[in-house]
């Protein structure tokens, strides 16, 4: 018998009972260059000078099957925006409880969105990047445990993921701690379409560095009640998301919607969505997408306190701080994916974002290559 390396590795997989460390190494990379069309139109970190670093990244994933249903997966990624300093994006162990149920523990990607777990693998989708309007929570990974379960419910494939853990890091406002982060995502679909729903909640504590002087001043003025309404001190954060995917014949359509809030804080209530449609013409896939961000400032926080705020200056500062959390933008993306190689795709995408509050338009043109290996 002719023994190829493949046959040997295959045999070691097939010989159950023999403990063998089976190593799978995969990688992906994106090399992207882009710029905005004007000096006053910065978007996604691009200015009006060509930048090849901002969204480029390299990653290596190692998965080791330790036998007896146990495996370890680690992904090391270097992002251009972080000077390609490699860090563990995730690292977890997996234990297959049954054929359709897997328990994971370690640093995991939280399944907030449809593309959460492969949002960095550009090769897996048509766009140059996942829609920032919807994928903009500020953090992606947690330390914790998850249970992944697949079922066949009649004609449907069901994928359920339960997650519990915590986050400690930077998520936009300042050093952030999320405790008791718990939730689930559920996807139900058939061969060419799927629906998805996700819900997560957590206790949110943030050291809002830029706001501390104001909050300290308010506390000093005996307005502790207002401080508690504004700050993030063990407040309940919730995330609710819905998604839809269609991939039929040559049509690819995706839509996602989510609502995010942190009650008892100045966090503006966020409602975000996007709709994307692409059409495959052999190796070419042109696409168009529309994104929307709506962050409603919580004006009712300061209303009852207006009469008791000691000075007009302080009143203005409180109102301004809370109102400045508001945002409203619409983004249109036009792009093309070209599968020029079995393992690589060339992409070009133009994004134009309209800020409905400042009436400013920002844009970015990005070209690049996404590779899997």
């Amino acid at each position, binding site marked *: *018998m002719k023994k*190829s390396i*493949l*046959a040997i*590795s*295959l045999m070691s*997989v*097939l010989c159950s009972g023999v403990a063998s460390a089976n190593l*799978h190494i*995969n990688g*992906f990379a994106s090399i992207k260059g882009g710029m905005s069309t004007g000096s006053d139109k910065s978007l996604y970190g691009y200015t009006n000078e060509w930048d090849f670093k901002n969204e480029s990244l390299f990653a290596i*994933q190692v*998965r080791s099957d330790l036998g007896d249903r146990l*495996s370890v*997966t680690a*992904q090391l990624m270097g992002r251009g925006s972080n000077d390609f300093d490699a860090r563990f994006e995730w690292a*977890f162990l*997996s234990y297959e409880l049954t*054929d*359709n149920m*897997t328990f*994971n523990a370690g640093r995991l*990607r939280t399944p907030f969105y449809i593309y959460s*777990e*492969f949002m960095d*693998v550009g*090769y*897996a*989708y048509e766009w140059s990047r996942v829609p920032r309007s919807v994928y903009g929570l500020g953090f992606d990974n947690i330390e914790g445990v998850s249970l*992944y379960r*697949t079922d*066949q419910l009649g004609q449907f*494939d069901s994928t359920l993921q339960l997650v519990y853990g915590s986050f400690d890091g930077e998520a936009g406002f300042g050093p952030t701690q999320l405790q008791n982060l718990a939730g689930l995502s559920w996807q139900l679909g058939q*061969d060419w379409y799927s629906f998805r729903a996700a819900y997560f909640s957590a206790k949110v504590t943030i050291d809002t560095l830029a706001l501390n002087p104001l909050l300290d001043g308010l506390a000093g003025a005996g307005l502790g009640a207002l401080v508690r309404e504004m700050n993030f001190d063990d407040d309940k954060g919730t995330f609710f998301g819905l998604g839809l995917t269609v*991939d039929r014949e040559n049509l690819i359509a995706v839509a996602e919607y989510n609502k995010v809030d942190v009650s008892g804080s100045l966090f503006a209530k966020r409602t975000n969505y996007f709709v994307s449609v692409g059409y495959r013409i052999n*190796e070419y896939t042109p696409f168009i997408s529309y994104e929307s961000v709506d962050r409603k400032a919580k004006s009712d926080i300061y209303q009852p306190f207006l009469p008791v705020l000691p000075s007009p200056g302080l009143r203005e500062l409180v109102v301004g701080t809370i109102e400045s959390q508001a945002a409203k933008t619409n983004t249109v993306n036009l792009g093309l994916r070209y*599968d020029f190689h*079995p*393992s690589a795709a060339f992409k070009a995408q133009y994004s134009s974002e309209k800020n409905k509050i400042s009436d400013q338009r920002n844009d970015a043109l990005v070209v690049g290559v996404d590779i*899997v290996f």
Partner: protein
Amino acid sequence: MNVRSITILLSSVLLSAGLVAEPLAVIVHPTNVAELSAEDVSRLYLGRGRTFSDGNSAIPINLAEGMPGRERFDERALNRSSAQLKAYWSKLVFTGKGTPPQEVDSFDEMLKLVATNPSIVGYVPAAAVDERVRVVLQLD
């Protein structure tokens, strides 16, 4: 080299030359009595199912990427282009949720593996089928 090997060799030569577009047969070990529908085959090769109808675990084996029969199988059995499948698997691989089926370099190797393990599912040109394996589904 016996007659059987010559037949296989010949059919794979003809196939690789693109001269014949004959049906593919999905095959299992003769002692495996499980039934497989086109839907079942698709589920196994997409990593959505991992067992035969009788509950025994199933191991699908694929032909290496770029081999003549592979693209045909991707399109007939899985209803997807090779590029679509690559994107599909990259989603599962990079989330640690699955690995694509193991690959072999020839139909000959495929036949040998199916003939030696009741858990394995494979596919070969219908003409290459012999008594060592059982056909569960024919893909025209």
